[in-house]
C-alpha cells in the first residue's frame, strides 16, 4: 500500500500525487498538517507544488508531508 508519513493509505497501486493529497486531506492522521501550510518530500527530495499533477506515486515511494512551521 502507498504510505504517507508512514501511514498506509487505501491506494495499493499507483496514484497521481495531487489526487493522493486530495484523497487524504480529511483523514484524521493527516488533517492537522494538511489544514495548514505544508510541503511534500518524495523519496527525500522536495517537490514543487507546480509538479504535483505530473508525479505518479507507487508503493515503493516514501511520501512525507512536512509542516512549514516546525522545527524546534
Amino acid at each position: 500500500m502507498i504510505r504517507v508519513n508512514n501511514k498506509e493509505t487505501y491506494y495499493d497501486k499507483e496514484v497521481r500525487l495531487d489526487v493522493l493529497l486530495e484523497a487524504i486531506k480529511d483523514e484524521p492522521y493527516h488533517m492537522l498538517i494538511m489544514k495548514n501550510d505544508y510541503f511534500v518530500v518524495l523519496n527525500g527530495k522536495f517537490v514543487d507544488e507546480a509538479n504535483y499533477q505530473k508525479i505518479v506515486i507507487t508503493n515503493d515511494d516514501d511520501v512525507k508531508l512536512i509542516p512549514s512551521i516546525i522545527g524546534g
Partner: protein
Amino acid sequence: MSNEKKYYGYQGKWLEVDLTKGSLKDRVFEEATLKKYLGSSAMGTKILCDETGPETDPLGPDNVIIFAAGFLNNTKALLGGRYQVISKSPLTNAFGEGNSGGTFGPALKRSGYDGVIVKGASEKPVYIAINNGVGTIESADGVWGRDSFETSDILQEKYGKKAVVACIGAGGENLVKYAAVMNDGHEARCVGRAGMGTVMGSKKLKAIVALGEHETQVMYPDKLNEDVKKIAKELGPSLKDNPFRKYGTPFAYTGALATGDLPIKNWSVGMDENMKKLTIDTLEKKMDLSAYFCKQCILGCGVTVQVTEGKYKSGKTGGPEYETMAMLGSNLLIDDIQAVQWGNELCNRYGIDTISAGSTIGWAIEAFEQGYITKEDTDGLELKWGDPDVMIELIHRIAKKENIGKLLAEGSAKAAEIIGGNSDAFAVHVRGLDFPAHDPRSHLASAIAYVTNPRGACHQASAHNLDKNPTGIETIRWDKALVPGSSEHVGSWVAELQNAMNMIDSLGACKFSGTVLGASPITKYTEWINAITGWELQPADVAEVGERIHNLKWLYNFRCGATRKDFKLPPRISTRKRGALDNAEHLPSIDIMLSDYFYQRGWSEFGMPLPETIERLGLEEYALADVHPGPKLEIG
C-alpha cells in the same frame, strides 16, 4: 485554595528574592503596567531594563534573573503552558531570554506568584522553594553537584510529586556560558538559549521548586471553557493520532534535509548522503517513542524516548528535538541516532544548550582540521567529523570545564576570539548566540530574523521558513504577498511575525498554536485574554504589545552597546554557498531585507527606533537620550 486577589489572569504578585541579603518580599505591579506589558516576556523585559544596564556584569550579583509564568498559564487556555526566563546574557553581554514548556510555568502560578525576580548572589549554594504563596531560601546541600534529573528527583521526594523543579546541572554550576535551566526532571524540558542557567550558577542558585493550589481568576470562565471545548471537539480524532504526536519536532528533519535547511558539517556543505540516516524512520526503529504533553497542551509533540539496548542504552527520557538531531547529528556528520540521543541526554543532565554545544563542537572540529587546535590542546583526543565518541567526550569536558572544555564552554564566538587567526570565519553565530538549525541560505527569512532577533541568532522569535506566506502564524498589520525566492517584502513580514511571536511567548503560548488553532492565533488569544481579564482589547492592541516588547529588548541592546554594524551574518553564511540542492547558489541579500525591515519597524537607517516610534509605543522612559537614532528611511 481559591485566589481572592482582585486581578484576573494574574496572581497579582511577584516574589522578589535577594540572595545576597537572604531576603524575600512580595512585589506588586499596577494593573496599567500589567496591561501595557502583558505577560511573561513583556514584564520580564521591563524588569530587566529597570534593574540592570550596560555596566551590569552578567555573572555578577547586580544581574537580575526573572522567571516569569506565561499570562495564559494556569487557565483553561489551550497551548498556554510555557514560561520565560529573562536576564542579561553571559554569552552575548546583552538581552537574553529563554522559553520552556513542561509544567513549571503553571506550577509557578499555582504557587501563588506570576514570577520570581532573583537579585544578588548567595555565598553558598541554595534553592528557592515556593509553597502555596510562601517563599523560602533553602540550603542546596544534597543537590548541588547533582545532575538535573537527580536534583528534580531529590526535591520532589522532599516536597511531593506535585512539586515542579526548575534547576541547573553541572553546566550552570561550572558557569558554562550556554548553560540551560532544566525543568520537569527526566522529561527534560529546557530553557536552552543564551546562558540563563549560567546566571543561576553565578548566583549559586541551584533550583526553584514550585507547588501550590492557587487558582487564577477568570472573569468569564464559561466563555473561555466553552470555546476550548468546542475547539477540542472539532479537532477530535486528528489529535489522537498524527505525526506531531508520534514523532515530535524530529519530524522536521526530513524537510530540512530536502530543502537545504539542515546544517551539515558546520554549515560547510549542502548535502551528505549519510545524514539521511537521521530521519524519523530510523528514530522509530532505534528507540521506543511515546508522546509527552506540556501542561495545557492537546498536541503532545514533546516525544519521550528510550534506547533499550546497545552502547547507548538508557532510561526513558526527553527525546531529541529537531534542533538537537541537527546540531549534535548532521552538523557534526554523526549519523548514529542513538548516539545523538545519548548526547542529548548528557546535555540535559548537565544542563547545557544542545544548539550551542553542537555549534561549538562543530567549530572545534573545524579548528582542529585547520590547525588552530592541536592534540596537545585536547590531551591527545583527535577531533574529527562523524565520530560520536568525540561528541560525547567533548560534552563531558565542556560541562566540567576540563582541558579543551574550558575554551569550548565559552561558546564558538568567544572561543574563536581567544584562538584568533581566521577561526572566526567558521564560528557561526550572531552577536555571540550560535545559529539554530535553519539555514538562511535556504530560507531568506532566517537571514533577517537571525540578525534582528534581540537575543541573537534565534529561530523562535520569528518564522524562519517563509518561502511563501505561511498560514501558521497570524500577523495583523501586514498582508502583502511574498514572491518565492525573492527578498521583496521579507523584511517587513519578519518584523510583523516577530511582533506576533513576542506576544505568543509573553502569553506563555506554544509556537504550534497556529497548527492547532488555525490561521489566526492572535485573534483567538485576544478573545481569550478578554474572557480572562474582562478587558476589551482588539487583535491590533495585542500585536502592538508584541511590537512594544521587541522595541524594548532592542533599546536594552543599544544601551549595552549594540550598533548598526551588529546587524550582520557570519562569514560562513554570507559568503559560502551550500553547493547542493535547489538553493546551492543562494546567498542572502541581507541589506535589501534590512532596509525593508527598518522601514516597517519605524526605525532609522542606523537600525534604531525613531522618536515617533518610541512615543507611539509609550517607551519614552527607555529612549536613549545621548544617542542619535539616525535618519528616517524612505521607501521609493
